């Protein structure tokens, strides 16, 4: 049975690229922070596999020409700080003196941390952020390489048989002597036995490969699993339902050690699918360990997808995903929201023809604008500061924003095929860097924030069609802007 599974896993590995679904989420890390007196933006591009080497890029936003600075980077393994290797000096970019880069090796699975230290005449400082080295989904071999390896193996078998026929028959034959029937037979036997041994060797390698692949594929799924339960089944449109989302770990035990992230036990995004027209950003409570409760009044019938961000006390975060099917009912008169920071926004479904809008309705006559370049010029894996501005009904930027869960804004991104979801803050993509973590975090904002803008450091992981929700808080109410963007 185990052998059959291994062979099946191996055969699956030979399927062309694309047959294996991509994992949900955006693996790369983007952070905006201050390393002492230096404002820095950090991009940590994760490797395709672990063990592997991430690349840390550091942008010193205001480095002046000729200012002597040294940027150093090191990785802290899951075993702890005392196992950390020496600092590595990041190399400055020849093209832009504000850019530095350094490798960040991640050799084992688990929660690593990275530290970036900047030192110069104006002082020094260090920032630290978690880096989760997870098991990626193994991808399949390309058909070109599969064919090349199969051909090479065929050539190896054929040439081995030919060599062994000659070796067995002729190796001890003196010049002038003829091959005897016995030596001819010996050559054939050698060729048969040698080829069988080689094919057996190839079989052992394939079997071993299959077991490795099966083990990796088993571990590559989300480490946390969600299960929705409703007090009233079925869930129908327009009717309030009290739902529970039970989150289990890989051993199917209720998840333990959940930490608050921006003051909430969970950030739950629900979107109508397909099209992502209805959007809810909810914050369930946790009545029991691993059980998250929330109210849901589906605006319409159909399928909804959910993405639930959970932060663990270890510092590692995970996104639990799933779907909720809603039966036909009535039109919702009032959306039940449990938490003052919960929000709902309805908008037309994603439409590629309308992609690229730089202004969005934000409710109550207000608008939200994508400024400083807008949605144009976006490229996959190219770090950009996505900046948005909230404007009053007269079109003027508002004077100040209320902090929304401790910061100026939240950005949520969903790819049109639901293969990627990201929850980004002005401080970057790392969860828990505010409030919950013992080290390397900024304080939660509590006072009104001057200005109308929030910016988010981010790079889209791959080309595609995305919906971006921007949420800011003004005069006590949450304003949501919706932008559809194509990343070429």
């Amino acid at each position, binding site marked *: 049975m185990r052998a059959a599974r291994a062979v099946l896993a191996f055969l699956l590995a030979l399927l062309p690229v694309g047959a294996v679904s991509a994992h949900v989420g955006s693996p790369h890390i983007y952070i905006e922070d201050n390393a002492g007196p230096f404002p820095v933006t950090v991009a940590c591009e994760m*490797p*395709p*596999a*672990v*063990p*592997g*080497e991430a690349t840390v890029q550091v942008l010193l936003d205001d480095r002046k020409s000729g200012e002597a600075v040294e940027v150093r980077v090191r*990785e802290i*393994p899951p*075993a702890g700080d005392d*196992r950390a*290797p*020496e600092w590595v000096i990041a190399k400055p970019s020849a093209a832009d003196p504000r850019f530095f880069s350094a490798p960040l*090796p*991640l*050799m*084992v699975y688990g929660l*690593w941390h990275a530290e970036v230290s900047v030192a110069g005449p104006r002082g020094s400082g260090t920032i630290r952020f978690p880096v989760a080295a997870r098991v990626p989904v*193994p*991808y399949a*071999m390309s058909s070109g*390489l599969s064919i*090349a*390896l199969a051909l*090479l*193996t065929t*050539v*190896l078998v054929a*040439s*081995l048989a*030919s*060599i062994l026929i*000659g*070796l067995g*028959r*002729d*190796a*001890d*034959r*003196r*010049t*002038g002597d003829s091959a005897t029937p016995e030596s001819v037979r010996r050559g054939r036997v050698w060729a048969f036995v040698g080829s069988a041994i080689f094919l057996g*060797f190839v079989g*052992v*390698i*394939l079997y*071993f*490969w299959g077991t*490795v692949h099966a083990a*990796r594929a088993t571990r590559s799924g989300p480490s946390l699993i969600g299960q929705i339960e409703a007090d009233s089944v079925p869930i129908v449109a327009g009717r309030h339902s009290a739902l529970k989302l039970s989150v289990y770990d890989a051993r199917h035990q209720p998840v333990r050690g959940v930490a608050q992230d921006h003051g909430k036990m969970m950030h739950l995004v629900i979107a109508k699918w397909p099209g992502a027209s209805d959007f809810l950003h909810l914050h369930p409570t946790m009545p029991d360990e691993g059980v998250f409760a929330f109210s849901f009044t589906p605006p319409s019938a159909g399928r909804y997808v959910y993405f639930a961000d959970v932060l663990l006390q270890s510092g590692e975060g995970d996104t639990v995903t799933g779907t909720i099917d809603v039966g036909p009912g009535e039109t919702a008169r009032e959306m039940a929201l449990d938490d003052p920071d919960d929000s709902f926004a309805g908008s037309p479904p994603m439409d590629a023809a309308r992609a690229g809008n730089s202004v969005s309705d934000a409710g109550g006559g207000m608008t939200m604008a994508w400024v400083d370049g807008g949605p144009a010029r976006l490229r996959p894996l190219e770090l950009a500061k996505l900046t948005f501005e909230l404007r009053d009904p007269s079109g003027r930027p508002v004077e100040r924003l209320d902090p929304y869960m401790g910061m100026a804004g939240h950005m949520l991104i969903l790819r049109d095929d639901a293969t990627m979801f990201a929850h980004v803050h002005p401080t970057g993509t790392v969860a828990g860097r505010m409030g919950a973590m013992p080290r390397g975090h900024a304080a939660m904002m509590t006072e009104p924030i001057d200005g109308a803008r929030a910016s988010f450091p981010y790079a889209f992981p791959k080309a595609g069609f995305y919906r971006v929700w921007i949420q800011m808080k003004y005069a006590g109410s949450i304003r949501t802007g919706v932008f559809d963007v194509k990343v070429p």
Partner: protein
Amino acid sequence: MTTSSAAYAPGRRDAAADRAIPGVRGVAWPLVAAVASTCCMIFGWNWDISWHRSVGRDTVWTLPHFAVYIALALAFAYNVWIVLRGTFGAGRDEPGIRVFAFHAPAGAFVTLWAVLLQFTAILFDIWWHGVYGLDNAVFSPPHYALAGALAVFYFGQFLLATSWRNSGRGGSDVSTRWVLLLIWSFFLCHIVMVDPCFGPLATVTGTYLMSGAVVLPFSLLLIDELLESPWAAVICGAVYMIATIAQMQFFQLFPATPKFGPVFHRVTHFLPPAFPLLLVIPAVVLGFTARALRGKRPGVVYGLCGLAFAASFLAANVVLALILSGPLGANRFFAGNYPGSAFIEGYRGSVPLGFDAPSAVRVAVAAAIAASSCWMGAATGRWMRTVVR
């Protein structure tokens, strides 16, 4: 050991022997290339292992890999030359075998086959690292293929040197004897792997004794039979030890900075390979046991040879383990518990053999395996004395 062989005729030259390939004084240059290639390969192999343990970081283009690539390129080049010469040039009338449309000595074809297998394994290995991550496991499917290809790589060049020596084309008796001894010594360096992470006690476990019994008696008796001297294996064992000790001392001269996470220990210089097994001891015991039993029934000869090997190999390993794990081993020369943290962390629960029934069974099984291995090694050595193509 039975040494009777009608086919063996020292000094008898093949008809084509007079047209020897122009070579270095006393030895044909392709055989010098064979020694250089196998030497470069074992150096690169040991350097690569040291690199993994000291630096950790590994890509396709690390320096030790270049040493391996150079060895492969050298073997590829001179064997292609031999095949082209044997098919289209002056070697058409010389002894060889036919593989597809080509004509050349079998050893050249075997070596090229090993290079092709190595190339295939490298392609697989590069893809593997992209999918399953950079090296953190020695035992991965592509590494099996690489190790298997390398064993054939040594054997192919050994076969080439054997056929040329037997047909009188390789050079003088003394020089070709040394070519064979050196290549076989490097082959021993390749197959005798002591994973330093298992610690000094690994060599006195039942598993190690039994796995050693698979390959070592075969290798030692093969060279004894081929060169018709019980000292041949002793010389190979000595060269293996000297080469390993030389590399141990050499690697420690160069600074290394750990780069990857699992290299948790603090090292300032490249870690040496593990101290070599005291192979000369079982080589002497095995060689002279076989000689003393000459003329007896094969079952008696190889049964007693297997027992002699198991006993002498275990005794030598016990002495080695005592030295390496004691205060005498904690220095640069033996590199036992030195530097301590580098080894202790990696111990994986090696359980040494003891004075109990399960241990006795393991030793008996090892002796039985060794007896079979002795028989195969002696038979292969006798057959190789007849190889002229």
